[in-house]
């Protein structure tokens, strides 16, 4: 298993160089004039004429042949330099570090209830096959699979903020962000407000942060949730028909024990195979969810950067996601081997 993990990790740089070369090549379809727009910070300063732009093109090497630019860029990457993100007005690597806690917080708030409730509902739906809980679950999972995240998010925002005023968009209310950004009153540890608030003993800030997290977390979880419930349900249905489940019942075990000790454990093995898909779903979903809720995290920044043709940011974030996904898939594979002793990683 150790050799397997090392081999998988060794593949990461190869994958990253391949895709970065691909996207970088595509960027060359733009002329240096178009690409340089991403580096202009103050259009008013450019009134002198085109000389200034020429200087910028020279400065960033945009008139060099493709392979020179690419090598220049890759060299920078190894030194931790992913270029200047005009959308964030800071270096790309720093921008990723700056926005990461917000997205991580959102993803955790989405993923934990997603797993707990999703698996529970899937199991219940199979145990009470063709009863009302099964029908409701199936309806939710079929529509969830077809419901565009951005429509779901907007409708939820319209109802729970517009009409009821319960859960506002953004990350914090104005009063709370004043407190959080004041080092005298609030010590930032993780950058995740719902965690930092507890560490600072500020329950009012915690409540405000959670209030802002509820809607985006539900929106982010919804799609993966539909998939999880569906797979858990059909896997559990199949397991309940196995003979060893009959045997367990015949032994006189309580139904509770049969379901949770005997059937559920085996039913969850196929569920682990969709773990990789759920990682992708969450990474993709962050972009749209954060854009809808004005939740200033990685996804919000990325969507904004893509619209502004902020190329260093787009490339840097895509790389970052590549690393996340390769590592995520590796973790899923290892977990799979841990829960199913029949699987041997080689």
């Amino acid at each position: 298993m150790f050799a397997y993990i090392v081999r998988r990790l060794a593949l990461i740089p190869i994958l990253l160089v391949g895709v970065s070369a691909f996207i970088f090549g595509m960027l060359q379809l733009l002329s240096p004039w178009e690409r340089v727009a991403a580096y202009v910070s103050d259009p008013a300063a450019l009134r002198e004429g085109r000389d200034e732009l020429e200087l910028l093109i020279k400065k960033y090497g945009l008139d060099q042949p493709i392979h020179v630019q690419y090598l220049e860029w890759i060299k920078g990457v190894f030194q931790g330099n992913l270029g200047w993100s005009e959308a964030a007005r800071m270096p790309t690597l720093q921008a990723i570090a700056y926005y990461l806690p917000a997205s991580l917080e959102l993803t955790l708030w989405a993923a934990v209830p997603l797993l707990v409730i999703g698996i529970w509902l899937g199991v219940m739906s199979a145990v009470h096959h063709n009863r009302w809980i099964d029908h409701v679950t199936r309806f939710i999972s079929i529509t969830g699979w077809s419901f565009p995240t951005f429509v779901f998010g907007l409708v939820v925002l319209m109802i729970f903020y517009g009409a009821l005023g319960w859960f506002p968009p953004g990350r914090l209310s104005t009063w709370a962000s004043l407190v959080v950004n004041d080092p005298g009153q609030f010590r930032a540890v993780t950058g995740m407000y719902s965690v930092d608030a507890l560490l600072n003993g500020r329950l009012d800030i915690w409540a405000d942060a959670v209030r802002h997290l509820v809607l985006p977390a539900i929106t982010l979880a919804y799609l993966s949730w539909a998939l999880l419930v569906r797979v858990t349900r059909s896997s559990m249905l199949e397991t309940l028909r196995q003979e060893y489940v009959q045997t367990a019942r015949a032994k006189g075990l309580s139904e509770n024990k049969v379901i949770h000790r005997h059937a559920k454990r085996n039913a969850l093995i196929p569920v682990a195979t969709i773990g990789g898909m759920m990682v992708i779903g969450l990474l993709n979903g962050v972009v749209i969810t954060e854009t809808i809720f004005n939740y200033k995290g990685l996804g919000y920044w990325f969507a904004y950067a893509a619209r502004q043709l902020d190329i260093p940011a787009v490339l840097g974030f895509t790389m970052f996601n590549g690393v996340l996904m390769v590592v995520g898939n590796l973790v899923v594979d290892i977990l799979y081997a841990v829960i199913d002793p029949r699987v041997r990683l080689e």
Partner: protein
Amino acid sequence: MKTAKRLVSNPLSLMGLVLVLLFVAIGAAAPWLAPPWQPAEPYRIPRHGFRAEPRPPNWGAWRTFPPEWRQRPLGTSEGQYDIYYGIVWGTRTAFRAGLVITGFAVVIGLFIGSLAGYFGGWLDEGLMRVTEIFMAFPFLIAAIALTAALGRGITNIMVALIAFSWPGYARLIRGDILALRERDYVLAARALGAPHWRIIFRHILPNAIFPTLVVASMDIGSMVLSFSALSFLGLGAEVGYADWGQMISFAREWMLGTVGGNPLQYWYVVVFPGAAILFFVLGWNLIGDAFRDIVDPRLRRVRG
């Protein structure tokens, strides 16, 4: 024939079929349902003036069918773009996106997958590494990055989605071809001296293509979803093009109503285009689901 019968007999897949046929009808009858204002540019949504604030549906317009878009049958969006007109012509955009993206992705996937599976060796090894590179990134994020690089526009969104969806089909068809390559009838064709292209296209592909086509049919719905998501994020066509994703992005500023007004007063700006996407995708997904059950008998048993 048997497949068609199964599709009709299951209520869920029947519903999917009805939904998709309904959209086919809307798309086909678009010139009759909403006669273009400028015949040269039917996809340009007409505007009822230039005020920013959306205007509510005029239900009276539905007394005649088809309703006259000039009477605002489903209201207007931000900037007075007509919602009814946009939904009707947006149906064509959705079909074009779904079919073109999946079509091209399948063709490229078939080509690359056949090469890899049939010839094997270093070619197989190399091509599979390439597919891994393409699949190493979250689909939507990779597509957004490529669209940003190519420049916004519907064609570029489609190119980006094709670029990151063909590897799935290539791997699928490769696996199926590997299983067939050593069959007796293939060996017989080779012994008779048939050229490689003939063996691939006449002998192997017809026997290996079906699972790929089923997966492709299941993907059309989610392709349209991704396409609208990119449009929604502002990477799509110029403002005012009949495209559902973009129509929903118009709604963003109006979701909460105006200060002091009824918060739900602009519901029609998101509900109508949103319902169009939802039902379109739902229709395809229901059909795809049924297809999978029919093709994979193991799953049918589970359904119970």
